[in-house]
């Protein structure tokens, strides 16, 4: 909780400074833009957080997003009357399929997630490219209802962001309140002890990968709705940003601790930096460097905090016998 608080504070500070510099940063339009800008990264970060909590990693999310986004476009090209619900389901389903491929390779063949998902990062993207063959799907090809979803708001909150919020709340609730959710933490904390406790480790890791895939698929649909214009390159290279968001959000890269809320805050922070720097009229070339420095600062801070907590606990160990 301390960690989430820290990031929340950093976020508030960033928004405050930017708003003081330029009050329009927080007007209705701009608030909406900030939320929209964070939506996709938040959805991906939630999935990634679940995977990282189990001491794995999913580098293929960007490729899955691209594949699913393009598939959504293709679906509308083929059947412009497709109901939105169906399109969302199709995208999520495709992502789920990709996640299942990852999960099966990792859990069944017992190989490191990093290598497998680095491989599927290439494979899924390659499939996406071959399928697209340079085709672009334009906003005009999408039904207006779907595109409206990309900009519509409900009570001042963009509909797309509502998806992200729903995913976040659901995942957060699941991880906290369900046995299988807690078992994911247990696995990340100590896989061997998890096995001794009778936790179905392989199955849970498989599930985590599948969830991450499905959420990347959802992110693809959201991408299609938001950007309207689609080619096969959507989400290219976003994976490291997602991992960074998760790590900045206080999820330990070696598993077992952190929360999806933290990861979402991390994503929100990274995307808000992306929006704030142009408003602050900071040299665009500095942006990436700032992001990198921030990642380092965040993980360094996280470690310092953990060390302090550990020290406090050690101090308490003076138990008489």
């Amino acid at each position, binding site marked *: 909780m301390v960690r989430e608080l820290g990031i929340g504070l950093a976020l508030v500070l960033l928004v405050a400074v930017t708003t003081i510099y330029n009050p329009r940063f927080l007007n209705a339009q701009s608030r909406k833009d900030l939320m929209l800008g964070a939506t996709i990264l938040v959805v991906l970060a939630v999935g990634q957080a679940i995977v990282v909590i189990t001491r794995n990693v999913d580098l293929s999310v960007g490729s899955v997003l691209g594949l699913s986004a393009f598939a959504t476009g293709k679906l509308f090209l083929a059947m412009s009357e497709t109901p939105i619900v169906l399109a969302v389901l199709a995208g999520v389903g495709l992502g789920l399929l990709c996640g299942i491929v990852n999960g099966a390779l990792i859990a069944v063949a017992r190989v490191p997630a990093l290598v497998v998902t680095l491989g599927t990062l290439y494979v899924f993207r390659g499939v996406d490219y071959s399928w697209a063959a340079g085709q672009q799907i334009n906003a005009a090809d999408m039904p207006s209802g779907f595109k409206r979803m990309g900009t519509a708001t409900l009570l001042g909150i963009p509909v797309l962001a509502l998806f992200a919020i729903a995913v976040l709340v659901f995942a957060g609730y699941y991880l*906290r*309140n*369900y*046995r299988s959710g*807690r*078992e994911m*933490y*247990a696995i*990340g*904390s*100590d896989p*061997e*002890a*998890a*096995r*001794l*406790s*009778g*936790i*179905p480790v392989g199955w849970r890791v498989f599930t985590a990968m599948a969830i991450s895939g499905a959420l990347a698929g959802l992110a693809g649909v959201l991408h299609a709705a938001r950007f309207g214009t689609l080619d096969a390159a959507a989400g290219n290279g976003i994976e490291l940003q997602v991992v960074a968001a998760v790590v900045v959000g206080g999820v*330990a890269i070696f598993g*077992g*601790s952190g929360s999806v809320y933290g990861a979402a805050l991390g994503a929100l922070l990274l995307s808000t930096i992306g929006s704030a720097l142009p408003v602050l009229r900071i040299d665009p070339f500095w942006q990436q460097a700032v992001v990198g420095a921030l990642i380092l600062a965040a993980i360094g801070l996280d470690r310092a905090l953990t060390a302090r907590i*550990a020290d406090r*606990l*050690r*101090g308490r*160990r*003076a*138990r008489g*016998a």
Partner: protein
Amino acid sequence: MPEQPSNGATLLALSGVSKSFGAVRALVDGQLELRAGEVHALVGENGAGKSTLVKILAGVHSPDGGVLTLDGEPSTFTGPADARGAGIAVIYQEPTLFPDLSVTENIFMGRQPLRGLRRIDAASMRRRTAELFARLGVHLDPDRPARGLSIADQQLVEIAKALSFDARVLVMDEPTAALSGVEVERLFAVVRSLRESGAAILFISHRFDEVFALCQRITVMRDGRWVSTDRVEDLDVGQVVRRMVGREISQLYPKQQTQAGDVALEVRDLTRQGVFENVSFTLRRGEIVALAGLVGAGRSEVVRAVFGVDRYDSGEILVDGVRLPRGKPAAAISAGVALVPEDRRQQGLVMELSIERNATLPRRWSLARLGLLGPRVEREDAFGWTQRLQVKAGALSDPVSTLSGGNQQKVVLAKWLSTSPKVLIVDEPTRGIDVGTKAEVHRLMSQLAADGVAVLMVSSELPEVLGMADRVLVMHEGRLVEEIARERADEESVMLAATGQSSGGAA
């Protein structure tokens, strides 16, 4: 002694159970019968196969052969979840907690109480934890993470976890190893009430007083085989030990008389906050000094600090009168100190590396010519000591992980003996090695001492301590409480000091 159990039905039984890990035959013929309303002790030397048997009961290992019967029905467990489903709760020898999760969550992982929609009922979970802790007399915050708990507290959490099962069968693998008297008494009270309510309990311990105080029957194991099962009334400690070891103890420790020489190692006021305090002692050439104490007394920490692996807060260490820098094992090695660590799998050996590379790792620089290690240098060098210690291996280029535990231990010994140390520190040198080899190791240590090496031996095995040591240093809760000369050292004096009851003592 407590009263008769309510009923004596056999809940869980093993017969003819065997289990091998590669070439190591951990269990050859395991037999056990756990009855309702009875506490059953399982004793045996280190490496006798007790924990392996426990893991078979827990469904962690599936046996290679033999029968497991549950309520009279032959059954098989395909995983820990099966055993748990059958009402078997297990406290493993090594705590298996999740460091990142709260104590409460650790206790209820996978079996959290649920409320509507299959959600975890956190409030009732915390309440039940508090109840369990109250029952055990534990003062721990149920919401604190398991990370940073002392071994004793970890063990208590494990006990609370096992109790929370309301299991019919409770298996405890050395639950008291890290506990002090008060906690042990509380645990026993809980165990007795469980027994009265009709549970079957398996209790493993190296402390015979506990065994005789708590248990109704005792099964003795040796070298993976069942030896005997008797009612406590029909046994005494001497009989149990003889059955465990299989021969007279005195044969085991061929101690040569040596003349103590110059001081080789001097430790002054070594302190590490919360772990050990003001530890001072000297070690002379030709001497074997034993560092005794209960598990968790801090002996390993002291010798690790001496070797430079662990940090320490104050004090100094001198080898041949020269001060060792802190935290530099390499410096300790070049000053002539060698440490055979207690955990060979984690600390002693690089399991995936070959025997020859393990055996020569500390001397890789001195073996190199022009900075290069030729293809045969290590093998030729490793050959000498591995041969002398009779390491049984296919080839020296095999990974050390393919060796049996005892042979692995020999490789660790070879690795350090080949550095020709002035000061040899051995931490539990014979843990997990078979009876024959044990005698060999003892002979070797005697021989080295006779050759003028100063030997510091940490051991939890009293007979080993009594048989080998010229002097016995006893640690209790991080302090050196007694120094006992060979002549006056016996089981009682050492145990009294180790349990902190000597109150000053005569030294």
